[in-house]
């Protein structure tokens, strides 16, 4: 038996099909993964993401600490509530995890990390904190509910009219506190919406209230097809400690300029990249899957995440291919020993309900 979030009984009662996800028993779908996918693209759905871990950092030296810890630069965070996506790197530039860091004030930040890497991250972060004056507090007392879709914000306000005041003016990638809730205009689907970090003790009531406002419970199955369509990497699949952000489509998240030193910087500066992470659009019927080989004119590559895109009704993938492959090239994916033509495209495939590739 795996670990359970505070909403486990709620999912069970709703007839969720459960599956192991990084050691947690989580809902994969509540009936149809594809219907849930469309619901998020067209209306509003919600995910239990409470298996992810929020970690609070407080103290006078939090800023210099995070400046050294993270590949992206927390100096970009000037307004309270601002969020920033970053990789956490080892000294070789390998990706320990990807995360979101929130700026509350000069001596209080929060980082949200992946479920499967939470313990590893925490011990790495504690080790790096030895020379800094700060406190690290894992917030196991919080639940995380992601409400996503074009109608997500309106429906949250319908369920909780009181939250409108603090959250209506939030720009994307900003968060605001409302009592003991943190409301962030962030997500992992390519749609608008909020992520609600709330006391775990309130989570079941909040879930029910959101559902009553017309927000559909969705499993992690469609969260994966939504993030893949949105061109977002999944840790452990599209990247891990054996690759750097520069060969994972994440150069834009690394702040290499200036004097700031961060863990992994020297390795990234000296890296000559030979591989890149790109999108693939399957030109024949079928489904692309992780670990399928991809033959290109410049050598072989491999699919890191693949699936069937419900929005495009076509096979799509993220693939790590030789650097010389260019957008628009036609390559061959090996599906059960047979070559299938696929076009190299620049992710995302879909954003805000619109198809961006062809």
């Amino acid at each position, binding site marked *: 038996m795996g670990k359970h979030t505070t909403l486990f009984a709620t999912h069970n009662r709703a007839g969720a099909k459960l599956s192991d996800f990084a050691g947690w028993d989580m809902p*994969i779908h509540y009936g149809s993964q594809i219907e849930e996918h469309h619901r998020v693209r067209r209306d509003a759905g919600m995910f239990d993401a409470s298996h992810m871990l929020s970690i609070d950092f407080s103290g006078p030296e939090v800023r210099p600490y995070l400046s050294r810890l993270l590949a992206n630069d927390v100096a970009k965070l000037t307004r309270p509530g601002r969020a920033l996506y970053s990789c956490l790197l080892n000294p070789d530039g390998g990706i320990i995890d990807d995360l979101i860091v929130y700026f509350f004030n000069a001596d209080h930040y929060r980082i949200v990390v992946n479920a499967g890497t939470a313990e590893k991250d925490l011990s790495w972060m504690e080790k790096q904190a030895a020379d800094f004056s700060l406190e690290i507090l894992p917030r196991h007392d919080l639940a995380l509910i992601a409400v996503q879709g074009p109608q997500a914000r309106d429906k949250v306000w319908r369920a909780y009219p009181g939250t409108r005041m603090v959250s209506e003016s939030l720009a994307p990638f900003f968060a605001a506190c409302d009592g003991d809730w943190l409301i962030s205009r962030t997500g992992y689907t390519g749609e608008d919406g909020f992520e609600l970090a709330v006391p775990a003790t309130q989570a079941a009531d909040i879930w029910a209230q959101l559902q009553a406002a017309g927000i559909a419970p969705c499993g992690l199955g469609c969260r994966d097809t939504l993030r893949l369509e949105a061109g977002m990497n999944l840790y452990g699949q599209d990247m891990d400690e054996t690759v750097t952000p520069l060969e994972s489509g994440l150069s834009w998240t690394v702040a290499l300029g200036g004097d700031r030193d961060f863990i992994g910087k020297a390795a990234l500066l000296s890296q000559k990249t030979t591989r890149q992470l790109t999108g693939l659009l399957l030109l024949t019927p079928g489904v692309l899957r992780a670990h399928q080989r991809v033959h290109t004119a410049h050598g072989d590559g491999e699919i890191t995440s693949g699936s069937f895109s419900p929005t495009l009704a076509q096979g799509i993938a993220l693939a790590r291919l030789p650097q010389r492959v260019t957008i628009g090239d036609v390559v061959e994916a090996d599906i059960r020993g047979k070559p299938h033509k696929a076009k190299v495209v620049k992710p995302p495939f879909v954003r805000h309900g619109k198809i961006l590739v062809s």
Partner: protein
Amino acid sequence: MNVPSNLKYAKTHEWARQDGDGLITVGITDHAQEALGDIVFIELPEVGIKFKAGAECAVVESVKAASDIYAPVSGEVAAANQAAIDSPESVNADAYGVWLFKIKPDDAGKCAAELDDLLDAQAYGKVAESD
């Protein structure tokens, strides 16, 4: 669990039915479609290809995974269901109504023995339950 008593079943979750014309019609079970989730792609064998009982002969893919389909009896593919290829989701809706392919047995006696080796509804129901 939906396991019709007039069909025979393979442990690998195919159903088989002998029709009046001597052909064996094959599909996947309701339990199989349920476990796979939303089916999005079906690859069926070409008519005329010969398979031995137990050989991989088709693939059903859901958003979650690809699943091999095995020939329940030996013979030649006599028909492949284009309607299933065109609407893979119809197998989710009606796994016993939407067949995948038909096999013309090599030999009537051998086919009877192979069908006999398959599970009846009660035995398959137990396999599916413990799955």
